[in-house]
């Protein structure tokens, strides 16, 4: 019986098999790269705001506390975006002619609010509460990164659920003393694991499973 397949069929078979493997792996790699890239997550992508507000300047250079503008962060689920009046507390005296602040002055004159673009926008089915986190020793920089070093505000983390769970499953790795919550430069000490366990007891953080219960964040 004559050969059914020419010799080149061996090559074709190998190319097809390996090609297919490479193609599938490549497709997987490409998908995960796009999924975790700033293109999808928006991490570290500064958004176009009505005023190019610099947290770096106001926090690091001017020494303004987070709570000076985000007044409701300890009392409410929402940290609060400062009203025009708060900006004008200083800017009624400083940079009063700066063209970059024209829309701010216009907002004060007309009563039309500035339209800031949300940088950290959680899906509406997530019920996040700032006051609860601040009260239990989770600092600003835990989620927002070094905002005090951001000339233009950007997202520091993906805010994906798996990212939230990293802490909800092991809060002792992230919890810090309450008086360090607004300390942007705070870093976990070498004994964070023990200190974290102590703080969990001290702040009555319920680690019996409530932190990972669906309805804690989704209602």
């Amino acid at each position, binding site marked *: 019986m004559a050969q059914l397949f020419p010799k080149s069929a061996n090559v074709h078979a190998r190319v097809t098999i390996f090609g297919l493997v490479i193609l599938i792996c490549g497709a997987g790699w490409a998908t995960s790269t796009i999924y975790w890239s700033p293109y999808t997550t928006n991490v570290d992508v500064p958004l176009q705001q009505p005023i190019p507000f610099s947290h770096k300047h106001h926090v690091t*250079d*001017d*020494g*303004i*506390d*987070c*709570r*000076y503008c985000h*007044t409701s962060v300890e009392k*409410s*689920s*929402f940290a*609060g*975006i400062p*009203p025009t*009046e*708060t900006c*004008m*507390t*200083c800017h*009624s*005296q*400083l940079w009063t002619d700066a063209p970059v602040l024209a829309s701010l002055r216009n907002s004060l004159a007309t*009563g*039309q*609010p500035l*339209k800031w673009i949300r940088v950290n926008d959680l*899906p*509406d*089915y997530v019920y996040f509460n700032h006051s609860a986190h601040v009260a239990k020793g989770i600092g600003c920089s835990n989620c927002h990164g070094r905002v005090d070093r951001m000339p233009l505000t950007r997202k520091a983390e993906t805010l994906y659920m798996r990212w939230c769970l990293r802490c909800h499953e092991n809060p002792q790795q992230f919890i810090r003393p309450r008086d360090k919550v*607004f300390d942007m430069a705070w870093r976990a000490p070498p004994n964070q694991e023990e200190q974290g366990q102590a703080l969990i007891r001290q702040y009555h953080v319920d680690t019996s499973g409530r932190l990972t219960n669906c309805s804690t964040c989704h209602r």
Partner: protein
Amino acid sequence: MNIINTGASARWIYTSDSAQPFQGLSPSVETIKTVCRSHHVCHRAEAAVLMTGPTELSKRNKWLGRALPLLLSIIPLIAACRRDMMNQPKAKPLSESDFFSDQANARPIPPHTVAWRNARENDAFYTGLTNGTYITELPVKLTPALMARGRERFEAMCAECHDRTGSGNGMVVLRGFPQPPSYHVPRLRNAPIGHFFDVITNGYGVMYSYATRVEPEDRWAIAAYIRALQLSHNANASDLAVAEQQKLESRK
């Protein structure tokens, strides 16, 4: 005689939206036509009817019969990928409104309304005044906790201009903001405590009101802390208890 899944054929007929496909079917599949017309195809999906021989149509569309249920089951998955759940039509704090003229969902408190449990009948506590004169006594109990709270709030809300010692050399002042008076000048050292509460509440000179930013309780805590700052700059060693004085002497 064959049994075919009429559900599948019916679906195909349904999607083609015309009576034409029925041409190839024998009269006994009249039921399917009915199903098609009444738009209840899905209910028949699991049904199998006896037919009098395979028709050309059923053969031709056998792959469709397999593929369509698959496709149909994928559609709801794709349909779930809309952003509606992410951005629900509800008002969240400071979200944009297409209803109110200032485009803000957060509404100001209407005039002449009092929030529940917020009657504010205690004038001294909420204004720092009794019968038009500043009160000289703190209207809340002075505790170490209040003082600590006052210090924390002062350093967050006031030290930007007044600096942490109250001398008025805060960072914002160094950047050009008009300098506020030092707390350690005689006029302010002798000012009644109600004055400080009133200034935080209503502003003073170029200082804006902080009424929306600092709660009344915190304003008293800050006022108490300002008194402590003033004392810290104008204390005499002889004011200390004897034991403390001796400790001070031994440090010299």
